[in-house]
């Protein structure tokens, strides 16, 4: 399924409802990265969407930007290890399962593969 989406269903700008629907069906069960207004990102499998771009994702993980505390801490450790160069801080990840993301909060959508 993901391969179909990756092959690039032509962007349905003028193909009508059927083409639009076919395009969206192509993404079902692909892994989407959805960024929302508060800076979080959700990575899960697309199960359902509608004309307001409300999204249902299954098996979802939430990723949150590290807090200042986390960054400071990582810097401290970096220093202790005597390492040089940039400090790399991972996003904070947790499992949240089945979720609905209302379309109005979505800022960016990406597809894997």
């Amino acid at each position, binding site marked *: 399924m993901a391969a179909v989406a990756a092959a690039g269903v032509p962007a349905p700008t003028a193909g009508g409802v059927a083409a639009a629907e076919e395009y969206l069906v192509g*993404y079902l069960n692909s892994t989407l990265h959805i960024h929302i207004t508060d800076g979080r990102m959700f990575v899960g499998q697309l199960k359902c969407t509608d*004309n307001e771009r409300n999204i249902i994702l299954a098996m979802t993980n939430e990723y949150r930007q590290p807090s200042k505390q986390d960054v400071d801490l990582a810097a401290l450790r970096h220093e202790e290890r005597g390492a040089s160069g940039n400090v790399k801080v991972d996003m904070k990840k947790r499992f949240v399962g089945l979720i609905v993301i209302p*379309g109005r909060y979505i800022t960016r959508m990406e597809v*894997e593969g």
Partner: protein
Amino acid sequence: MVLIDHDADTSIAATRLEREARSAMSYAGPKIRDVTGEFDAAAKQLPPGRLVKDEYFTLFEAVGALEIMDPKMDSGFVPEDDTAEPEFDVCRGLLPTEVLWIMDQLLGLLIGWHDGYPLSQTVFTSLHVDRLLSPDNRRPYNLHFGSSVSTGVSDTEQVIHLVLRAYCLALVKSCALVLHTIQLQNFYEEEDFVTHLFGRELLHGLSAEDALGSIGEAMNWLPTSDIQKDVRDALSARLDFIWTYVSLLTNDLNDWHDLTDVLDTIKATHHLAPPIPEAFSDKVQRQLASSTPPRPMMQVSWDLACQKWREMCEDTVAAGRLTTEDICQSPQSLQRAIWAFAYRDPPPNTYARAYLQTILFGAERLGENTSFFDLLLVDIRDLVLAGDPLANPDNFLIEVPSDPRHQSARIMEVFMDKVFDEYMNFFRMVCQNRCRIRRTFTQSIGVLDSLEAVAVQTDADLDAITPMRNGDVLLCPMTCWVRYQKLQIMIWTIQLGIETDVYLPHELSLMYWLLSWILERKLSLITHSEVFLVWRMSEANGMRDTRVVAECLSSQDYLRSLRTQVEAERSLSIALWQLFTVLTAVKAIKPLKQDYARELLLYEARMKSYLGLTQDPIPPLSEYKAARSALGSVQEVCGTTTAMTKQAKSHLAELKKMTPHQARYVGTEEQFKREVKQMETTCVAIAVQTSQLLRLSVHQAEMGSATSEEKLGIEATVPAPGSRYHDWWVVPQIKSTK
């Protein structure tokens, strides 16, 4: 050829695995393509209401999805004026008294977890615990992530990094130990207890001994500090508490009274602790893996928490006391003991119930020299085979295949193997919560019914080797035993149904009627067994085998106690079914208005668990209706009810005279007495209500206001469970409405 093929297969598989491993190693993250614009454009073209969805994904499932950015649903939602993470520095030094409060708060949250709250609302809300459990924290699990604490830190810092940290480590380890005990036994997730860890691990790099070691260090440091003596002692008491608790959980200690003793000291010093609520926050839920909406932190009531701790200790002590060697040797006494444990008030928590199950089922044997297989044999012997060589344990050791004792022992053994699991359930299920006891027993009825069919065959096989008949009557020991167990389980399901308020008031007439029918069947089984026992005793006396005689006499006492008890229960159930029937007839109890209900359908729905029986099926609805219409006037019914309660009372009086060994209530003497007392009180209450009914009906008949029984102007209410004299015996409260 086959070999070569196999080799080729494995080498292909190996190459593929290697290739996959390589590609995984060089994996630099998936290719990601931005589709924001085109996806949006496509979605906009869909007509409103049209869903594009995976065909296997149902809208029913969709209902369970959590809505992101909805404060009530999204545990990761951060309000605009708030921060994502709590702003509290867990490394900051605190006053020793503040640490005292944190410790007490944790104690309250911990018992809340025992009580059924998830960790996310209890222990995990402690920011100190949260830091220790943070996924990037490693052994030795410090609160600070930087370099180790330099020497010469102040007392206020040491009290955090040494004392509170050790306390938290031990507390978290205690959770791991409790989980281990509970998860090895039967329990019901969410219903009894929540085992979910929300993606956290409970310090898997640290053993309970390590945690106790940290407690030891903290204990050693305390006297060297400058902390005021009373506070120091209070801190030490809390460390002592958690140390004792963990030691009990690891079985290094086994007297739970030790814990109650420390609890008293803790309670006395709780007033020293000023609250520092900022050390706890439900914001930690934003970091926890969870597919549930955010839930508030549990509110701790200190006094209640202490009381719950005390109850847990007492329950655990009771579990030990109810499983002593002499109780465990008698299956019936052990049964009573487990019921007594389940009926402790308030009911023991999940850990205490798991603790009891560990004692009972944790090892192959119960105590020194009893196994459940032995118990099963004793159970069968006591009920149907006392004095019979068939139930002699020595038979099972005879190895000569031609010996009839060997042959019959093998047949017995095969049968006992088949009933063994179900027999164990009689004990295990009583360790579950009340509603589950009833439900699992309901499922057990069908199993026992099919085992009864097996027993019929077993009896035929046994009869072919050693005939057991008294004249024309066959003993059929195994059939008798299984049927007896089945009837007993049916009785319990009805009584537990009454206790858990499964039946509506107007259904009580039917249920007590069925109960009296089952008790009648049970009574005839006991009689059957008694007849054979007497016959066997007359033969045994001739043999003068003292062991056999003792066995028979003991069984005779036991059967007599069963008879007395069943007679009492039967009289009570007859009194109650008739009383409820007449109250329904005079409209003192009104059935619900159910327009589409048919009596037969209602009967079938209510009797669902019992209708499938093929051996000795329950009577049809018509029989109940016939019995109901055969009842006479109100006055006549009152006469029967009064007579029945009198009978029940005299049986109870007789039962009370029996010793613990005779009636098999060794170890539960107190509970036995209490139950008999409750039943006696029930008798009195039935008599009182009956005379009330009689008085009202006669009075109104004299007034001429009652032209028909339907207008007696009487109202009957059914007391709720907990406010009855005995939860299994409901006595209606009768009063006049005029």
